[in-house]
């Protein structure tokens, strides 16, 4: 859907900051999240998880557990059929089959009358494991002789296809030009290796669901998820149910950030419920969330970039190795595609390796793959700028991708906002502010693709002229407010007159998951189209009442009006006027839209970060932070700023203190918020934001998704700031105090 008016548009409501429609529910405790639902006769479901990083499961004995009074059902691998194809790995991740592939892998599940009984039952299940050697580090897993997780995994994308299985699932390569030629033209070349540990999305709400399957095979599922249609389709496949027999309702969702785009406990709860004939609720503990949901990849990244003294980059090359946990599918392809996406390069190459290790299967985390590669590339750009004595902003401006640039992953860019964000950074007071002792400033840019996808909305005109808008994308960051704004904008009515709800899977057609920064873009586009569909119908009803042709009616400020003097002289009819008599003019009035939304505009962001380091302890504090990002058009600026701030802070956490720590035994050592250290309020300054608006030509209002890009630059922005303050280049993330202190000590000794 193209931009309505490329010359600029004015809006009545879009761009204002009204209260969100679900606000009162959420400040009074009334909002119902995943764990807040209950059902009469409900059982408690609990999972037994592998204590081993890698083990063959010889036998599972559930007899004693089943005999415990109060235990109503137990499921193991035997209760899930073998699945081939796309969902094979998902199915095996949900419940281990021949092998447990990571510490925390589900092995069995119990439904019992209460938590205490379920816990007791878990202890009575005897699993006979044959412990196998394990590997949790990406580089170790790639070595010949490493313990192999899957005997049927042969590296794809290399010629010839290996005859021996390994942990290397796939090789990807992107780029164009001739990097060797480019490096030969360079005056300065920097190459470095970077490393980052895995992180977790860290949503505060653990996974939770309530499943109920009747004896007739009809099922209901209440679940906190980013995509209830996807949950329905996957669960139906895993359990051999007709899709029509499973109705999934998305609860309010307490954070997802990509981590709630797949299934973990949902098929298990359904299987238990089906077996027990009673509703079953499963709520993960925080420990389970860390051990057995979907963290990010850990990775090593090698980057080499050449530059001329005048600041023009001649070539960029990168090799990325990402582990994706126990199954193929790390986001290394997206890491490789986005690595150099901010730059206009003649010679560029990025090679990615997708590797499996004995860790939980990774799940998406906000711009999956991109922060990791951007950390390497933006750090090297920073170093090159220092080496040629040029301001890092000037280097970026000189090489920034623009309209017409052949992107590093292929397609030629249309209208993009990267340069606008860098220019805004350059003139921002933050960039000029003086720094004190032991302080350093970092700058970094980032890119994300943004997606559209399948979307369906239903916009119903109520009898009093108010509007009920049903969407199918769970609201993960205030999107209902944006939908109300767009519907009201189109219809010419008040914001408060539209109520947006997230419909269940049986009430509305299929919708893709709330992911890829797609909701405000796609569901917004569908809402606008549905509103225009409704307007057409409203005009038709008015035409009928006036006895004129529908083409002779136009819609203005919430009223149907004759299009001109020739159309006749009739007093305008408001939406409420028309709605009131809908029964007499043809029945209910509704607008619909079913679309596969295309045309999502790519997104760019530039961040500024100041840190201060205690040189005696390595303690690092972010003292100032500014996010500048292109939103295309900010529908509800407060929630756009919220996305910028939230993404930046997650990135700051990743950069400084968050990490998965595995012991030599392959077990996760910090499965809790005590030692998995996400930023707390006292760690941070205010996060300044600048919303740049370079309209996306592929959306009627020009909007671009804003959810993910904000996590791409911070790793590098913080690393560049820390490197400046510590006077030593930091190449390992997280830059925890022991690492900083060690690097500073080594630099002083050199």
């Amino acid at each position, binding site marked *: 859907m193209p931009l309505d008016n490329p010359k600029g548009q004015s809006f009545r409501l879009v761009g204002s900051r009204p209260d969100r429609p679900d606000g009162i529910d959420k400040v009074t405790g009334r909002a119902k999240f995943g764990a807040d639902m209950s059902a009469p006769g409900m059982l408690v479901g609990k999972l037994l998880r592998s204590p081993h990083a890698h083990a063959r499961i010889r036998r599972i004995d559930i007899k004693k557990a089943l005999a415990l009074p109060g235990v109503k059902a137990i499921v193991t691998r035997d209760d899930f059929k073998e699945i081939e194809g796309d969902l094979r790995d998902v199915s095996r991740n949900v419940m281990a089959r021949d092998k447990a592939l990571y510490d925390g892998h589900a092995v069995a599940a119990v439904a019992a009358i209460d938590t205490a009984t379920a816990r007791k039952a878990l202890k009575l299940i005897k699993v006979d494991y044959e412990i196998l050697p394990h590997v949790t580090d990406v580089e170790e897993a790639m070595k010949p002789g490493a313990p192999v997780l899957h005997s049927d995994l042969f590296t794809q994308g290399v010629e010839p296809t290996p005859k021996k299985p390994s942990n290397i699932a796939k090789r*990807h390569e992107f780029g164009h030009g001739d990097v060797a030629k480019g490096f030969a033209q360079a005056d300065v070349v920097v190459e470095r290796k970077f490393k980052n540990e895995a992180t977790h999305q860290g949503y505060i709400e653990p996974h939770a669901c309530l499943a109920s399957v009747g004896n007739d095979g009809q099922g209901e599922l209440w679940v906190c998820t980013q995509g209830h249609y996807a949950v329905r389709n996957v669960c139906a496949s895993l359990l051999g149910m007709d899709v029509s027999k499973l109705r999934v309702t998305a609860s309010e969702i307490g954070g997802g950030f990509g981590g709630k785009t797949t299934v973990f406990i949902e098929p298990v709860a359904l299987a238990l419920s089906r077996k027990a004939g009673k509703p079953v609720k499963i709520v993960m503990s925080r420990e389970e969330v860390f051990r057995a949901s979907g963290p990010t990849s850990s990775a090593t990244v090698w980057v080499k970039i050449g530059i001329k003294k005048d600041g023009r980059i001649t070539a960029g090359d990168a090799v990325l190795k990402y582990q994706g946990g126990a199954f193929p599918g790390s986001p290394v392809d*997206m890491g490789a*595609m986005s690595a150099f996406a901010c730059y206009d390069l003649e010679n560029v190459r990025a090679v990615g390796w997708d590797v499996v290790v004995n860790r939980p299967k990774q799940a998406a985390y906000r711009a*999956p793959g991109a922060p990791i590669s951007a950390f390497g590339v933006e750090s090297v750009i920073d170093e090159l700028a220092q080496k040629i004595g040029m301001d890092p902003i000037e280097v970026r401006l000189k090489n920034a991708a623009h309209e017409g640039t052949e992107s590093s992953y292929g397609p030629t860019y249309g209208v993009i906002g990267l340069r606008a964000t860098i220019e805004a950074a350059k003139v921002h007071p933050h960039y000029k502010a003086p720094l004190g002792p032991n302080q350093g400033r970092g700058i970094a840019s980032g890119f994300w693709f943004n*997606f559209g996808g399948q979307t369906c909305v239903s916009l119903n005109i109520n009898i009093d002229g108010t509007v009920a808008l049903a969407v199918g994308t769970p609201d993960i960051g205030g999107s209902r407010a944006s939908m109300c704004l767009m519907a009201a904008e189109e219809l010419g009515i008040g914001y408060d007159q539209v109520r947006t709800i997230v419909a269940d899977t049986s009430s509305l057609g299929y919708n893709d998951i709330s992911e*890829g920064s797609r909701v405000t873009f796609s569901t917004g586009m569908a809402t606008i189209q549905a509103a225009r569909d409704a307007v057409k119908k409203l005009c038709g009803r008015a035409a009928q009442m006036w006895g004129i042709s529908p083409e002779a009616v136009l819609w203005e400020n919430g009223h149907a009006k004759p299009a001109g003097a020739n159309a006749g002289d009739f007093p305008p009819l408001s939406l409420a006027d028309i709605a009131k008599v809908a029964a007499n003019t043809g029945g209910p009035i509704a607008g619909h839209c079913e679309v596969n939304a*295309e045309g999502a505009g790519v997104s760019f962001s530039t961040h500024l970060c100041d840190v201060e380091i205690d040189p005696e302890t390595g303690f690092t504090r972010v003292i100032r932070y500014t996010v500048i990002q292109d939103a295309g058009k900010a529908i509800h600026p407060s929630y756009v700023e919220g996305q910028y701030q939230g993404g930046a802070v997650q990135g700051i956490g990743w950069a400084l203190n968050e990490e998965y720590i595995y012991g030599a035994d392959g077990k996760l050592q910090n499965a809790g918020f005590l030692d998995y250290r996400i930023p707390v309020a006292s760690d941070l300054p205010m996060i300044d934001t600048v919303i740049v608006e370079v309209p996306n030509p592929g959306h009627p209002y020009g909007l671009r998704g804003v959810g993910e890009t904000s996590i791409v630059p911070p790793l590098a922005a913080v690393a560049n700031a820390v490197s400046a303050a510590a006077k030593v280049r930091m190449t390992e993330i997280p830059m925890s105090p022991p690492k900083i202190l060690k690097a500073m000590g080594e630099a002083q000794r050199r």
Partner: protein
Amino acid sequence: MVQVVLWGSLKSATGGATKVEVEAANIRELLSRLGEKHPGLKPQLDRGVSVSIDGKIYRDAWFQPIPPGSEVFLLPRLAGG
């Protein structure tokens, strides 16, 4: 004829070529002709790809027209968080 640029690691399925030409007026035709001409691409095509036409990325739209002279890239099927 449409010239399609493949991403680097697919060239093993096309005898080393990263640019291939097929006759196609829309994405569905493009994908089926690619599979016929280069059977080695078939598994990847079945797993899912995105197609970029003149800088716009499409994930599913079979009937998206490919105007003559368009810049066409095959890309991995992408997903966000």
